[in-house]
């Protein structure tokens, strides 16, 4: 073979030898060792700190609390779980569940359109604006936000002022008179508590839905339209099923965050404890850690049931 003159290639650069390179080469060849090094710290954390404490919680929920000595003995008993079924405790669980359910549904209904817009339409600065607008409330202290809502919702607050200016005060008073919803004022009503909960947890619903919708290829919606599906039909048969894992992920956040919260129920809304308050009281004031633990198991079980049902309904088929 004849080569053209002046075409001699320069010798390839030799890699420099060194300890870092040797280590890298060993790790590259030995994948197991590499994965072991990579995963040991997080697995230790998850195994010991995360799951270990959860397990210890589960075990302690079966311990016996002596009302008389206020002491805990490691004698296993079902008494704590039986106590959950007492009318007073039962009420607490139902009250918390109803709130968590309403907050989740409202967040999904409010969050989906925003997430849809962010994922499908917003570009450039608009997208950035929406991200920041959704995240911004999370930068502020949760306590401060909860307190400021008590002011916003109070009589003489901005909402009352606005409602009055719009001449809708009778409507608000009518709503507040509804049993289960109302109270003497907005800040002491379930409606007010619901508004605050929905406000603080909405971002946790929007972001997973937005991520799920973003993963749906746009041409699937075009294909649906091409095959004759009107927008409502392609939404129902293509976009919603594919985005549903995002809704489920978001609803786990809003649902479990509401289930476990104990500050908002103290600050806003009518009297009556939530599961979180009960845990706080049992553990902090009374020292009945077993009862607190059994209350904590309730949300875990409920989320477990929820996920099973969601799976049965095919919520994760698109994953």
């Amino acid at each position, binding site marked *: 073979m004849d080569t053209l003159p002046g075409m001699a290639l320069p010798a390839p650069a030799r890699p420099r030898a060194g300890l870092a390179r040797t280590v890298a080469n060993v790790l590259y060849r030995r994948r197991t060792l590499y994965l072991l090094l990579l995963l040991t710290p997080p697995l230790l954390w998850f195994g010991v700190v995360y799951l270990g404490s959860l397990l210890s919680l589960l075990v302690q929920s079966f311990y016996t609390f002596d009302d008389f000595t206020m002491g805990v003995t490691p004698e296993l008993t079902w008494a704590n779980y039986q106590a959950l079924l007492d009318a007073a405790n039962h009420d607490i669980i139902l009250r918390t569940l109803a709130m968590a359910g309403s907050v989740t549904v409202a967040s999904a209904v409010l969050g989906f359109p925003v997430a849809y817009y962010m994922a499908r339409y917003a570009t450039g600065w608009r997208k950035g604006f929406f991200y920041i607008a959704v995240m911004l409330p999370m930068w502020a202290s949760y306590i401060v936000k909860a307190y400021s809502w008590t002011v916003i919702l109070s009589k003489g607050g901005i909402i009352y002022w606005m409602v009055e200016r719009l001449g809708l005060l009778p409507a608000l008073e009518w709503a507040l008179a509804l049993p289960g919803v109302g109270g003497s004022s907005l800040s002491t009503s379930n409606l007010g508590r619901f508004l605050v909960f929905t406000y603080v947890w909405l971002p946790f619903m929007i972001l997973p839905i937005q991520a799920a919708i973003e993963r749906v290829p746009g041409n699937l919606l075009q294909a649906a339209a*091409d095959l004759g599906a*009107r927008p409502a039909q392609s939404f129902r048969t293509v976009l919603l099923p594919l985005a549903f894992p995002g809704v489920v992920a978001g609803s786990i956040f809003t649902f479990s965050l509401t289930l476990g919260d104990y500050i908002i129920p103290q600050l806003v809304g009518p009297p009556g404890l939530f599961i979180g308050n009960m845990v706080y009281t049992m553990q902090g004031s009374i020292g009945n850690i077993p009862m607190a633990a059994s209350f904590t198991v309730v949300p875990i079980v409920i989320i477990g049931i929820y996920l099973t049902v969601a799976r049965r309904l095919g919520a994760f088929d698109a994953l």
Partner: protein
Amino acid sequence: MSSFAVELKHVSRHYGAVKAVDGVSLSIQDGEFFSMLGPSGSGKTTCLRLIAGFEQPTSGSILLHGQEAAGLPPYERDVNTVFQDYALFPHMSVLDNVAYGLMVKGVAKATRHKEAEAALELVALAGFGSRRPGQLSGGQRQRVALARALINKPRVLLLDEPLGALDLKLREQMQTELKSLQRRLGITFVYVTHDQGEALSMSDRVAVFSQGRIEQVDSPRNLYTRPKTVFVAGFVGTANVVKGELARRLTGSERPFSVRPEHVRFATSAEGNRVSVEGQLVEVQYHGATSRYEVRVEGNQVLTVSLLNGEADEASLPRRGETVRVAWAPEAMVQLEQGGG
């Protein structure tokens, strides 16, 4: 009512200053296999999307079977599309994917599943209905996409580079199948491709796109033998496009002309009425059935000669670096317009 399945009249689609489609007019006959051929960014896919209704024209009019379609959403049009990456619904079975068009029309489950089975049979995928798209190979997904697009019995089927993701063997097989399917169904196929071989072998007529405009609409044979512009000559097949001073010396006209490599031969001397030019052989490429010889002639233009291997005596063929004379018959020359490309 006109016999045209699709008519575009002075259709433009601009994105800001970018003219993706720039004043395109064409008429596609009912039952025709019509290809839109061009490099990427030439406007062919945008044209298809305009016909499908995914895009709306900036100006101009689109007629589907004589009815104005500009402004109509995709779900109001009697055309269906096979997408480049298939766009199958990942959360549905193959059968439900195919039956989708009937489902949204409210056809009962039993009926639509029966029709979907029949459509799967048409594309040789009977029995695959219960699988998920993710469990199929690329070629099988392609067939599902085809069956799904045919379930509504469209009069016009739009295909957007449907074979682009398949390997060569499968692509050739699918070309044959698509063509025979189109013949059997008797519906109009509008086929977008950047592969000139594909367009030539399957189509009744081909529109060659360049920079948002149509360069030429013609039968594959005419496109190859009678290209009208420099762009078409170069894009459809391989062509020696001779320009400038050399063109003037050889033809007496400033207009560029093209001559196909298979019409060019090596010659020993200026013989008879053949057009010939001298140059240096700079490259020889072996292509199996043929070999290609690149000859640098005056004006730094390179002419390609294509010879069947085994036709000429191996020893008599010139070698790289030699000075050679190439010649062709005057009737092999096609005069070209500069065109947009």
